[in-house]
């Protein structure tokens, strides 16, 4: 198992290397220059010369690539100017450190668990949850940016260090993406299961129809419709502003007061939810439709399997046939789907983030592309690539947890 993970990681690094080369070449040969906008202004000539020199734009592309690559993997100092104590209990909050501890513990535990031979059911469940724990902890670490930084360069648009931009935006993107994912999973999976066990019922037909409609509606239509109905008209009818259509928090967010340990207060949480609901719902609607379709299909396949007939012939009540025997088998194919969705979530939701003014990776990315800001473009591409590679490995490990036929030795 351990050897398997290491092997997959090595393959992953090779893949990422190839990805970086291809994308870098594509950017270089797609025409245009990051300095084109400055050229329109005759007084900028000296600046252009200086920036060309500074960013190395006059050198051949392969030289630029290797400079970028070398920097990309070189750590730079993160200076917690206020000192460790302040970092721990002040600016970043105690929870960051709890998260680091949890992450290290969960990571060590996860690796250890795969070498253990215990087969009790609670152990397997616990093991599966520990993987989720690792991810939640990783999210906190990313959000607090406390571990270290790499020299990912400075944005060509004058936004400052790319590393800070990416991880700042990643926190926002994860807030949106994870909420959307949670909604989609909590509604989509049970919906698909219910449709399968009541196949061809009125509910099933309605679910199928709604899923197809939602799945085939472009997200910019869903987003704008939600804004129109749940924000604009709802406010007009009720006279109360329930949902906001732009931004992550209201302008008076900080004045709402902090809660314990520097965590958001209830009022702040409410404000966050008011802003988060609509964009999260737009993304969730489409994934939900997809998940319910996949779940329905895989559940139906299991429902007609021989071992389910065996379970019935044993005299098991219908409930435990579905919950114990059908569900676990039917969840296996969904793992791939969801893990890839999580991987692409790192790249942000370009359209949704644009519609709802959400300062996530997607907006950063689209802005960087239009300005040929290649340090930012490369960083986002590499983040998505790393996400896909990692999530694929995690999906394969999860397969082993759910399905004893797939164990890697």
């Amino acid at each position, binding site marked *: 198992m351990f050897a398997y993970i290491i092997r997959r990681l090595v393959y992953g690094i090779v893949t990422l290397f190839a990805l970086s080369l291809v994308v870098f070449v594509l950017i270089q040969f797609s025409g245009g220059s990051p300095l084109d906008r400055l050229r329109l202004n005759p007084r900028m000539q000296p600046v252009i010369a200086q920036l060309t020199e500074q960013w190395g734009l006059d050198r051949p592309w392969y030289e630029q690539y290797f400079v970028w690559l070398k920097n990309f993997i070189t750590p730079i100092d993160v200076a917690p100017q206020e000192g460790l104590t302040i970092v721990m209990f002040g600016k970043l909050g105690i929870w960051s450190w709890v998260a680091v501890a949890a992450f290290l513990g969960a990571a060590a535990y996860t690796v250890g668990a795969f070498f253990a031979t215990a*087969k009790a059911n609670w152990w397997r469940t616990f093991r599966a949850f520990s993987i989720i724990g690792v991810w939640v902890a990783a999210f906190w670490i990313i959000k607090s940016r406390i571990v270290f930084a790499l020299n990912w360069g400075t944005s060509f648009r004058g936004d400052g260090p790319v590393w800070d931009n990416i991880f700042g935006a990643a926190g926002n993107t994860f807030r949106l993406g994870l909420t959307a994912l949670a909604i989609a999973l909590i509604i989509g999976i049970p919906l698909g299961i219910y449709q399968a066990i009541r196949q061809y019922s009125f509910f099933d037909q309605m679910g199928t129809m709604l899923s197809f409609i939602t799945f085939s509606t472009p997200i910019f239509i869903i987003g704008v419709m939600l804004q129109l109905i749940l924000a604009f008209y709802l406010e007009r009818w009720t006279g109360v502003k329930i949902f906001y259509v732009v931004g992550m928090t209201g302008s008076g967010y900080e004045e709402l007061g902090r809660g314990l340990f520097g965590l958001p207060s209830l009022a702040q949480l409410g404000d966050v939810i008011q802003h988060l609901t609509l964009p999260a719902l737009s993304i969730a609607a489409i994934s939900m439709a997809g998940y319910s379709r996949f779940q329905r299909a895989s559940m139906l396949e299991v429902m007609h*399997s*021989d*071992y389910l*007939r*065996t*379970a*019935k*012939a*044993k*005299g*098991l*009540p219908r409930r435990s046939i579905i919950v114990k*025997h059908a569900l*676990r*088998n039917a969840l296996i194919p969904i793992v791939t789907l969801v893990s890839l969705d999580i991987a692409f979530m790192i790249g942000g939701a370009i359209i949704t983030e644009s519609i709802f003014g959400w300062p996530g990776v997607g907006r950063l990315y689209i802005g960087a592309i239009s300005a040929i800001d290649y340090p930012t473009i490369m960083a986002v591409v590499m983040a998505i690539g790393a996400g896909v590679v990692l999530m694929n490995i995690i999906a394969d490990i999860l397969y082993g947890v*759910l*399905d*004893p*036929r797939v164990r890697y030795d």
Partner: protein
Amino acid sequence: MADPLLNVEDLRTYFSTEEGVVKAVDGVSFQVQAGERRGVVGESGCGKSVTAMSIMRLIEPPAGEIVTGKIEFDGRDLLQLPESEMQDVRGGEIAMIFQDPMTALNPVYTIGDQLMETILLHQDVSKSQAREIAINTLSDVQIPKAANVMEDYPHQFSGGMRQRVMIAMGLSCDPKLLIADEPTTALDVTTQAQIMNLMLELAEQRNTAVLLITHDLGVVAGFCDNIQVMYAGSIVERGTGDEIFHNPQHPYTWGLLGSMTRLDESQQERLNSVRGAPPSLINPPKGCRFGPRCDFATDICREALPILHQSQEGQKVACHRSDELDLKAMTVGVG
């Protein structure tokens, strides 16, 4: 004779499809005595498995439905039982073994989990007692190191071993009737014999009645007290093994026997087959259902459906001409 363990009367199980109603089982009646070994023989699609599934009430509406009939088991009509009581019968009093052991076990749970699940469901025992029973039953079906394989998953087992597990699962609660639906079809020949002998032995020890469903005449020959031959949804001949094998009265049984390889008779150069294909069960032919494939069909066979009646030879047969034909004297394929 004492009351039979299982009494099936005029069972009709129909399936609705887009083409029409498929009469998979159309008026089947038979009885199984306690401890009896009964074989049900017939080609694919003749309604053998559907009969078994109907007894277990595993036919799923709305696609399939038991239209009429009575299935009395141990004094109760199974078709009238509420679902919750039927769940106690399934696995507890009537156990079933299926055709393909490769897919009949849930791949994500251990053998032990799946065995103990049945035991805990039907017997009032603690978990550790259930474990003990499971291990004992596994040793009964001759699985070596039974205690160790409890933690193994089905994919770590061969087909024959899995079928042993299925038998263990079926017998773990001491059912009165064991329905074995083509238990050896998916296994290779040497394993087949082992599994059949094992089942025979265990059923005898526990005085469990067995309803063996198969298309393999060789399997029933060595195993069953009584045999019934099914064709197109109904029983065409019923009798003891001796009667069926040595003195078939129905042309279909006769044809089936002629298509069998036999080690004791070497005069035949090549095997015969029953010509034609089974009739549509949506629009069965008028008259005898075997009529269109029968070498001896006459006008009456094309007009009236023969009913199962006592023949002169002793067994019951559903053929208009059974008394006039002397099938025993004829070589198959001449007519």
